[in-house]
């Protein structure tokens, strides 16, 4: 049992070592001549004018959240649909309660304007 994990351990050590070596090599080999221009954040472009912090719309995020809710609903609906004959009335009612809870959430999102663009 443990010898199979020894291989994993060796792979882990080698993986870490390769990363370290690759990070160290440029330090040792590359010439190091820092000049002020080189150290600016945007070496290749123009200096920015004004505030660079921009507000961006979070509407995509709201859409994604609402989408995720229904996406997950499908995850639960699919196994339920496959086996609800076996599970009987109880599971049937239970799934409807679940969907109603989701719909209340959806109604809320709609009413509060999460689905309106701009």
């Amino acid at each position, binding site marked *: 049992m443990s010898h199979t994990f020894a291989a994993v351990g060796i792979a882990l050590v080698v993986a870490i070592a390769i990363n370290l070596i690759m990070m160290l090599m440029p330090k040792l080999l590359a010439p190091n001549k820092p000049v002020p221009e080189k150290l600016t954040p945007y070496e290749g472009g123009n200096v920015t004018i004004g505030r660079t912090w921009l507000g961006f719309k979070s509407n995509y995020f709201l859409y994604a959240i609402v989408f995720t809710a229904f996406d997950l609903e499908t995850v639960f609906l699919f196994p339920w649909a496959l086996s609800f004959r076996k599970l*009987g009335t*109880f599971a049937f009612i239970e799934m409807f309660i679940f969907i109603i*809870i989701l719909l*209340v959430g959806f*109604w*809320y999102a709609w*009413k509060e304007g999460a689905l309106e663009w701009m």
Partner: protein
Amino acid sequence: MVNFELSLLSTEIIMAVLGLGLFIIGLILPRGSRKGMFSLALFATLGTLIYAIYDFFFSKNALFLQGMFIHDQFAGIFKIMFLVALLLVILSSKAYVGQFAAHRGEFYPLLMLATLGMILMAGAGDLITMYIGLEMMTITFFILVAYHPNDPKSSEAGIKYLVLGASSSAILLYGISLIYGLTGSTQIFSVAQALGSQLSPVTILATVMILAGFGFKITLVPFHMWAPDIYEGAPSPVTAFLATASKAAGFAVIVRFFLLMLYNQGFAETGYVILLVLAALTMIIGNLMAFPQKNIQRLMAYSGIAQAGYVIVGIIAVSTPTIQALENGVKGVIFYLMIYIFANMGAFAVITHVAQSQGSTEISAYSGLAKRSPLAAAVLTISFLSLAGIPPLAGFVGKFYLFSAVIDSGVVWIAVIGFVMSMISVYYYLSVVRVMYTGSSDGLPSVPVQGAAKFGMVFSMIITIILGIYPTPLAQMALTAASSLVK
């Protein structure tokens, strides 16, 4: 094929239906007329509380849904505790919630859903049920903490709580997965059986991780860093609920899981030593850090950390393996949490009132409060004295139960630390009282308390005094709950 009694789940079902129902009502009502939500939420909670008390006394104990859920008096008394806290929060938050013009409708349903999560935690017989309850509570709190729409401090607190809460949940889940990997079960009784009395590095790791996850919720010392910032930034009623009910829920799961599940195995060696050290640290750091605070909600955060330390002392008493020690310890824990809720809710009702009428949570805003609002000043004084453990009040009885339980179990030094630290805590509590009674009230508005908030304050003050003079009924209830745990 589904054989369980739905009636045993009544409290949970009522809370779920209430939460969603109020949510829908909030959607249907036009924006201007959502004031009625207050009385609706208040009386619905009162009704549920009365049912929970009935449930505590007259319903049978059972383990159902394949052991996923436990219905016993231990869960029952915690349900009462959460509902009392919810009731007092709703009472004290009426005027405060009026500020949230746009989102008034969601506040009470969210509080109720958080309570539902706590109730699930108290009754959980399975790590998964417990985790779902915990997440339900925590995620609702993320929203509530960030509830002030345009206050950067509140949003910052919300984000901080989200990030830290998520990482603590991750640690807890990792502990749970280790337990599952070791035993092949997530149910507490099967886990306890499968673990047996063996002690391996993995069980220690799992113990520590689960303790870290729960320790975050109850602000045990190395995991307490989030509390001051988040308590300061959150809206005052939410801070009140976070400081009392959320903490009580954390203790409910700690008692149930830590003691039952890990009781047989190395708990005596690992959990016990860790808890001893952490309890001492929690009491010392919580009390000492409270001294320099200028903001009352930060002060309450550190005071809450220290109080959590006292309660952990009761849990240490439990780890002596006799039934009587276990009952005494759990009785102390339950009793202390109950009186902690009343004292803290009294204090936070005043804090909410001042925050709402003066727009400040700095201690300097309390200057001369005794002249401007004698009732609020009196309630805050009584609550603080109870938290400090001054004799005629409930806090003293609670500390007496906790410390005598731990002394009976043979660990005297932790009780000594507790005594010394509660002496020290009198200073910072009284320094707020001094500001209220001797500070000048020049230039500060007169802020009389009215309506529901007044009732909430007077109610928690009276209960704090009565339980100090005549603690027997609550002590009896706590003992019943504790013995239902071991049966």
